[in-house]
C-alpha cells in the first residue's frame, strides 16, 4: 500500500498530499503521524492539500482527527491550500472541520504555526 511521506521541517511536520487518497492510506497516515509527533517532538503539523481535488467526509474527518490527536500530543495542525471548489463543496456537504486551523498557502500556514498560539488566529475553523 502507498504511504504518504511525512517531512520534518524545523519543529514542524509537513504532509503534502499529492494523490487521491485511498481510505487505508489515510488511516495509515494518521498512525504514522502520531508516532512521528512523539518521536520528533514536533510542535506543529501542516497538511498541504493544494493538489487535492476532492475532500469528502472521510478525509474531512481525518483532518479533524489529526488535529485533535496532535493537540493531545501538544502540537498544532494547519490545513493549507484548500481549493475554492473543494471549500464550496464542503460547505454544501455540511462539514465544518471544527477545530482545524486553515491557511491559504504553505507559507502562511508555517507563519501561523510560528506565531504564539492565541487560541483562534484569523482563518481558524475552531467550532467554538
Amino acid at each position: 500500500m502507498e504511504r504518504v511521506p511525512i517531512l520534518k521541517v524545523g519543529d514542524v511536520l509537513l504532509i503534502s498530499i499529492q494523490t487521491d487518497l485511498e481510505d487505508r492510506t489515510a488511516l495509515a497516515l494518521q498512525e504514522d503521524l502520531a508516532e512521528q509527533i512523539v518521536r520528533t517532538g514536533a510542535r506543529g503539523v501542516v497538511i498541504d492539500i493544494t493538489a487535492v481535488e476532492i475532500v469528502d467526509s472521510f478525509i474531512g474527518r481525518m483532518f479533524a482527527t489529526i488535529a485533535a490527536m496532535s493537540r493531545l500530543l501538544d502540537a498544532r495542525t494547519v490545513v493549507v491550500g484548500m481549493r475554492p471548489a473543494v471549500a464550496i463543496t464542503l460547505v454544501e456537504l455540511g462539514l465544518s472541520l471544527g477545530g482545524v486551523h486553515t491557511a491559504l498557502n504553505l507559507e502562511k500556514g508555517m507563519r501561523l504555526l510560528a506565531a504564539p498560539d492565541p487560541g483562534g488566529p484569523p482563518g481558524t475553523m475552531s467550532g467554538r
Partner: protein
Amino acid sequence: MTNPQSGGQAHIVQLLSTRQDAALDRWTELAGATLRGRTTQTELRGELRELLSLTLASLEREDDTARSELRAVLADMSGRRARQNFTPKETAVAVFTLKQVVHELIEDADEDQAINEFVAFSRYVDDLGLLTFETYAATREQVIADQAEQLLELSTPVVKLWEGIVAVPLVGTLDSARTQVVMEALLQTLVDTGSESAVIDITGVPAVDTEVAQHLMKTIMAARLMGAECVISGIRPQIAQTIVALGIEFGDIVSKATLADALEYLLSRNGVRIVREVVG
C-alpha cells in the same frame, strides 16, 4: 421537433422539377421582398436553390438523408439570420412563400391532381417554416446567453484595497447565478493574490432573496475553510429584515455599515492603525 411528411405529392414534384428555374425566380422575388437588402439577390437565390433541390429530393424519394440534410440547411440559414438580427417572421416568411410559388404553378398548368396534393404540400412547407422558428429561437437564446455571460464577467470586479485585502463591490439586483459566479471569482482571487481578508460590499444592492443570501453565507463559510476572512458591508435595512425574517443564520459573520468601516476593521485586525497627523 416537427417531422415534415411528404405523403404522395408526385404531381407537384413533377411540376416543380420541370419548371425549376421559373419557380426559383419567382421564389427569390417573393422571399426577397421582406429582406430589405440585408441579403443580396444572388445570395438569396443561392440559398433558395439549395433548399428547393433538397425539398424536391426529400419529397421525391422520401428518404431520410435528403430530409435531414434539408433540415440541416434550413437550421443553418435560420441560425445565420438570427445572428444577423432578422426577425423570426422574416425568416419563416421566406420559406412560406414557396406555397405561393407552387400555387401559381398549379394554376398556370391547370392540373387537377396537383391541386389535390396542395393541402399536403402546404402542410409540409408549414413544418419547414416552424423548423426555422425553432432554430431561430434556439440561436437567439444562445446569443443572449453569451452576452449575459460577457456582462457577468465585466460586472464582477474583485479589487485590491490593501496588501492582503480585496473587495467585491456588488451593484444591482443579484440573482442566484450571478452571485455564484461572483463568489467563485472572489474565492479564486483570494488564492491567486494570497489575500486573507475580503470585503463583500452590497451597498449597491437593493434587495436579496433567500437563495442569494444563502450564497453569500456559504461563500463566507468557504473562505473560512480556505483560511481567509470575509466581512460584509453596506447591508440595507430591507436586506437586514429579509435575512432576519428568513431565519438565515448569519452567525458570527462580521458586518460593517460601510466599505470604509470594513476596511478600517480589517486593517486593525492586520495590525495597521490609521492616525491623523496633527500638523503645526
